[in-house]
Every structure is written in C-alpha cells, then in structure tokens.
C-alpha cells in the first residue's frame, strides 16, 4: 500500500490545507442514532463533517457521552453509521480493514498470546512466515521499549506496558491510519505523559494519519495538528481548532509557551457543558 504517504512538513498545523486528491479520512454528514429502551431514538451523532489530510494528527475532544468514540468506531468500520458516509482515500468504508489500525483504551490484547505473539499476530494474518513476522515484531517491541518482555503474557504487564504492546501490534501490520480511542485514559498521570512523548516520537518518524479521541485538553493540544471539539446531546462538532505549535514538540518547552497555554484555556472553556447538562 501507500507507505510513502508522508505529508510535506510545510503547512502543518493549518486547518485542512487544501490537498490535491481526496482526504485520507472523509466524514460527510455522519449521523448515528440508537434505539432507546422506551422505543424512542437517541441521536448520538448529528451530521458530522470532518476531513483529515494524509499525515495529519487530528484529535476529537469532548466530554464523556458526546459520541466521540462512536465516531471513531464508525471510521474503523466496526459500527455502521445511521446516515452519511465515511471515506478512506476516497473509497467508502464498508467494514474494518488493515488500512486502519485501532488502539483501544482497554488495550484488547489477546491474553492467550505472549507479547511477541500479539505483535506478530497481524503480520501472520497478512501472510508473513512465522520467522519474518517474529523478526519484524521483535523490532517493534524494541522500538516501544519492551525488549526482554517478548515471552511475557499480557496479564503479567502493567497498563502502560500493555498499551505499548497494543500500539506495537497495530503499527506492525502497517496501517496508514491510526485510530486511537482514549488510548492513555486508563493510565496513571506519569505513565500517560511517558506514552504521549513516545507516541509523538513514533509519529514524527512515520507521519501516519492519526485520529485520536480524548477528553483531556492538554493531551489534545500537546499531540495534535488540529483539535475537533465536540458537544453532547446530540454529538456535534462545535469547532475545529488549529494548533499552531512548532514540531518537534517538547513537553517542558510547551508548558511555558504562551500559545500552548492559550490553546488549553480556550479549549477548556469550549468543552465546558452548559450548566443544565453538567453532571
């Protein structure tokens, strides 16, 4: 597939730079309704329009229950939209596929497989021989800093280690898009920062297209080129904010950067719920 899809560095951070050809991810009028128990319907997502350019890092930021994960699952092809359409490189999404690699908050590692077996799984699925798959998996395990843990079962690992295995497992089969569903939401603050740094390092190397769901404002600003802010009931995109911070980004510099602070404050105000809905 198109491994050479690294976007040019210029123009990074600008909102949806006009790009020749179709967007990497195109969401047009996506809606999702759920049946309620009382027979009524609940509008979870209301006409979502959002394009993601190749090599762009876009976060979807919103309070819990705004439907941001559902939107990610629709892009992944795991959940069908009730209306509208999603395209990947111009082709309509009809189901899951190896061009879009998910990383879930719950890690979703195969517990009966070792670290090596998990990371090699998608490669074996793609038809690689055991030897080649394990060699490539070994490299990725080293890249996420888990060398020496190849023979461990997931159960023996900490949350942060599990998520690093999950990221390696998804990177292994070479998806051109990463779909990350609050990947660091279940981790403690320290581990979270470590993994954010590691993700940025990995991303700055291959510049994959990333759609990243989070409810943490600082995380969204730190990582993203653009942040789409969602509101809930119904889930709508309120605003898309371009994060005009230079890369490579370093946490300690950013924390002192006025522009970073401004973005955090603005976004925090934006995701605040109207008082009647606050829980």
């Amino acid at each position, binding site marked *: 597939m198109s491994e050479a899809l690294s976007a040019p560095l210029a123009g990074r951070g600008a909102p949806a730079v006009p790009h020749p050809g179709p967007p990497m991810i195109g969401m047009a009028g996506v809606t999702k309704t759920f049946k309620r128990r009382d027979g009524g319907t609940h509008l979870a997502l209301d006409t979502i329009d959002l394009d993601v350019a190749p090599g762009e890092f876009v976060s979807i930021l919103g309070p819990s229950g705004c439907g941001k994960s559902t939107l990610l699952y629709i892009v992944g092809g795991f959940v069908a939209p009730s209306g509208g359409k999603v395209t990947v490189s111009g082709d309509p999404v009809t189901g899951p596929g190896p061009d879009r690699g998910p990383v879930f908050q719950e890690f979703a590692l195969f517990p009966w*497989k070792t670290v090596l077996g998990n990371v090699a799984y998608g490669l074996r*699925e*793609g038809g690689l021989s055991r030897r080649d798959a394990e060699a490539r998996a070994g490299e990725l395990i080293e890249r996420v800093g888990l060398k020496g843990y190849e023979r461990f079962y997931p159960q023996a690992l900490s949350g942060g280690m599990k998520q690093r295995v999950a990221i390696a497992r998804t990177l292994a089969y070479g998806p051109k898009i990463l779909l990350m569903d609050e990947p660091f939401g279940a981790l403690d603050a320290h581990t979270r920062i470590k993994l954010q740094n590691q993700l940025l390092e990995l991303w700055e190397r291959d510049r994959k297209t990333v759609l990243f769901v989070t409810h943490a404002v600082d995380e969204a600003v730190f990582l993203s080129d653009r942040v789409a802010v969602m509101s809930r009931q119904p889930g709508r995109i309120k605003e898309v904010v371009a994060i005009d911070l230079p890369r490579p980004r370093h946490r300690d510099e950013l924390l002192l950067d006025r522009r970073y602070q401004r973005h955090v404050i603005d976004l925090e105000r934006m995701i605040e719920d109207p008082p009647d809905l606050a829980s």
Partner: protein
Amino acid sequence: MSRAASRTGAALRPGLPPFLACLALLLAWQIAARFLAVGGVPDALSTFRELPAIIGDREALGEIAASLRRMGAGFGLALLFSVPLGLLMGRSRLVSALVNPLLMVGYPVPKAALMPLIMLWLGVGDAAKILVIVLGVSLPIIYHSRQGARAVEEKLLWSAAAMGMSGPARLARIVLPAALPEILVGCRTGIVLALITMITSEMIARQTGAGNILFNALDMAQYETVYAMILVVSALGIALDVLFERLRSGLTGWAEPIPSPAIAPA
C-alpha cells in the same frame, strides 16, 4: 493476613490435610460398620481386602477398560458438537433464540431415564450407552461455552477484524481461545457427569462394564465387592479430575492469577 496464612501453610505439608481427612473418614466408616452392624454394610478393612480381587482380575479390568472407552467416546463426541454450538449461541442472538428453548426443555430431563427408549432404537450395546453419555455431558459444555463466548470482549474481535480476519475465522481463532478457560469449567463438570451416566447406563443395560460388576455383586449380596467397586469408581473419578486439572493449567496457564510473592519462602 497473608503472612499468617503462609505460616500455617509452612507448618503443614501440602498433602497432609487431605490424607488426614481420608483417614478420619475411613476410621468413622470402620467404627460405624462395627457398632451399628447394619446388614449389607461391610467395614472398611474387609472392603479394602476385597480390592486386590478386583484389580487383579483380568476380566474385571477389561470391563472397567470398556467402561472408560465408552465414557471417552461419549465425552469426545459431546465435545465435538457442544463447543461449536455453545460458541455460536454466545455470539449469535438468532442461534441462541433457536436452540435455547430446546436446551431448557432438555435440561431437567434425567438423561438416564431416556436409556430404555434409546435401547429400543439402538439395542443394549455400546451405541446406546455412548449416546446417553453424550446427552449427559453436552449440556454443561454447551452452557459454559456459551457463557465464555458471550463474555469475550468486543474489542478483541474488532482488533482481529482490523487485521483482516473474517467472521468464521474469528469464532475459531479469537472466541474459542478467549472462552477456553470457561469452556474447560464446563468440561470438568462434564467429566464427572460422564462418569455418573456411564455407571447408570450400565446399571440399566446390564451387559458389561464397571456398573455391571457393581450391580451383579449387589444382586448376589457380595457387599464387599459392591463397596470395593464404588471405591474403584471413585478413585477413577479423582484420577480423571486430577489429570484434567493438569491439562487445564497447561492449556490456560496464561489466564491463571500471577503467584503472589508472599507465598514464596522469605
């Protein structure tokens, strides 16, 4: 608390408590048989004296082996269809809705009560006995397979689907291994039920087998043989269970809780 537990654990050898419990049971049996002197209840000692006669008897051993063969065949056949059916039920609402009513009806029926009917169709030979064992074993395996399949995390399946794995392949390669610990719980119940149905089937269709020896001896008022046979069957049950536990921890060691360091000697 864990420290106190490990202290008492260190004082006792691991095999000692069960050994003491067995000894106490045998002692109680011996005393009760002696003092109550109910007809047809031999004491523990004379029962144990009868054991070599059974274990040394080629014919008796052959019969027990035949019983175990039927039990293995019945258990294996049940496994072959119960696990896929249970997994399908766990993942598909349609299959579950179709099959569940049948299982609900079949559940309370004592499977051995069907033996006379089955004998009408299949005769008194191995086929009838194996079928009864299949019926006796399959329900818990289906039930636990279904529970296991239901509990599989959706996102495991999504992760596999994103790798390009098809639906049927996910059932065999994701749902099956993920549900294996629960399936094996059903199998363990199944083994005990197989042993019970095996004996019962041989009681009804008396021809061969461990159950046949037992009930023939009962007819001839050879109570020592009856009790010795019960001991043999129980020992078989315990041995099978231990073997199965070994197999289980080998297959699903990845799901075992990690041994806490508190258990290790300081």
